[in-house]
């Protein structure tokens, strides 16, 4: 591991330790308040950061397997939420089979196949497999929902994994992943904090009543500043490119968040699952990344590869 990657990982774990100690001290100071949820949240952050650290610092086979498992869990959570037809048993299995294949293309660095496999081949194949069963009822509905799941949980998320195999020095990929994921998460938190402190004007009250214009603008500005700060250290981006990428991550992170909120509202659930205690499901954590990952990947690829 390169010294800069080690330093980045140390900083992440240090932040977690500080957070854990803070919660402990605060719960000792005011034991009358309920700290369970916050504590659960921090404990789950430990798991997330450990898995994340493993995903970017292990050899390629292990690293891509971890990313594939994340896609698997996300697709499973999505399919558990949505109504599926009993006759679609086999097409659903095929959707899962797309996961190892997609990550295999990444493993052998077949860039063009990685790009077209899901949006072209899987897209055309799944409806064909559904037609063979011959159930016309709700056909379009079922096909669209299945496509939506594979595109978001497999195709979009696999862009994070492709960052790790981009050509360059061995630490280039992991650092790019850190840049993307840290910025996406900080953007979520910053938008929440700005909105909580100064939020008045609601952006889309019907989908997400807590989202405000002040939160959005404050969050995006914070993310742009962070991108400018970290861009030079972690990525090949120049100063103004970093700021631009920060703007992109800020806005699309917001979009991913509210789009997944709309999905959950449509289905009528608050959380997408209960895999991550304190956070809800894995999709609740990945929602912004579904948008930021492909867009960050392609702007970076356009500018520097």
């Amino acid at each position, binding site marked *: 591991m390169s010294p800069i990657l080690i330093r980045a990982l140390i900083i992440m774990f240090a932040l977690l330790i500080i957070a854990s100690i803070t919660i402990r001290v605060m719960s000792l100071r005011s034991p009358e308040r309920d700290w369970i949820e916050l504590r659960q949240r921090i404990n789950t952050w430990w798991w997330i950061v450990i898995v994340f650290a493993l995903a970017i610092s292990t050899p390629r086979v292990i690293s891509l397997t971890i990313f594939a498992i994340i896609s*698997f*869990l996300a697709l*499973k*959570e999505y*399919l*558990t939420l949505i109504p*599926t037809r*009993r006759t679609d*048993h086999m097409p*659903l*299995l095929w959707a*899962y089979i797309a996961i190892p294949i997609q990550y295999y293309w990444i493993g052998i660095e077949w860039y063009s196949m990685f790009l077209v496999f899901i949006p072209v081949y899987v897209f055309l194949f799944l409806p064909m497999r559904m037609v063979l069963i011959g159930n016309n009822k709700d056909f379009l509905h079922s096909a669209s929902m299945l496509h939506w799941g594979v595109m978001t949980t497999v195709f979009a998320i696999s862009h994070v994994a492709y960052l790790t195999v981009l050509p360059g020095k061995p630490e280039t990929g992991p650092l790019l992943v850190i840049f993307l994921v840290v910025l996406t998460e900080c953007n979520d938190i910053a938008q929440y904090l700005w909105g909580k402190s100064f939020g008045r004007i609601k952006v889309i009250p019907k989908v997400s009543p807590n989202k405000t214009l002040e939160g959005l603008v404050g969050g995006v500005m914070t993310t742009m500043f962070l991108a400018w700060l970290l861009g030079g250290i972690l990525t090949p981006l120049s100063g103004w490119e970093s700021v631009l990428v920060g703007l992109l991550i800020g806005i699309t992170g917001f979009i991913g968040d509210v789009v997944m909120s709309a999905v959950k509202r449509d289905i009528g*659930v608050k959380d997408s*699952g*209960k*895999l991550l205690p304190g956070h809800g499901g894995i999709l609740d954590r990945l929602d912004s990344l579904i948008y930021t990952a492909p867009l960050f990947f392609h702007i970076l690829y356009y500018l520097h590869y």
Partner: protein
Amino acid sequence: MNRLLRLLFVVVIAYPVVLAWLGVSVANRKRLPTKGPGIIIANHNSHLDLLTLLTLFPLSKVHLVHPAAAADYFLKNRWVAWFATRVVGIIPVVRGGDPKQSDPLAGCVQALQEGKILVLFPEGTRGEPERLSEFKSGLWYLCQQFPEVPVTPVFMHGLGRAMGKGQWIPVPFFIDVYVDEPVYCRSDKSVFISDLKQRFESLQNNAQGR
């Protein structure tokens, strides 16, 4: 030997399929009996139901857990019969036989006398996915003889969808398992059965209302 085979079956098949491929969250696992004799009753939509129930118990208790299963289905050929009785540990129940000639529940009675944890599917068969069908009364006849044995209802949501009747490869879905408070046998058959039925229905509403 049988005990080792069963342990292997749980670790090599049930754990990977149920815990890794599907993923299960259990509510109130502590209500499960920790020693025999005991009766677990569960809704039945899939062959995965039993695999899932086996994963709910600690490995040291797995050898105590025995499902009652249809003899006509599981004893129809030699290999399946060997696997079902030796590895899975089923207690065969003869369906539709003449009860005057032989007691179909004799095996279950013996298992409870030996202090085992008996798994019963009171719906009898797997039925439509995620739909409860009528409860058979065999359970009542059995627990009449064991009024002090706790009957623990377990409701499993999502397994019929993952692998229903006629399907052989499980599709991954997250599964929810709810364990209810144990009950004891009542002298009135219809009251006992309808009480249990009601418990399952409220567990099902719970599961679907999330």
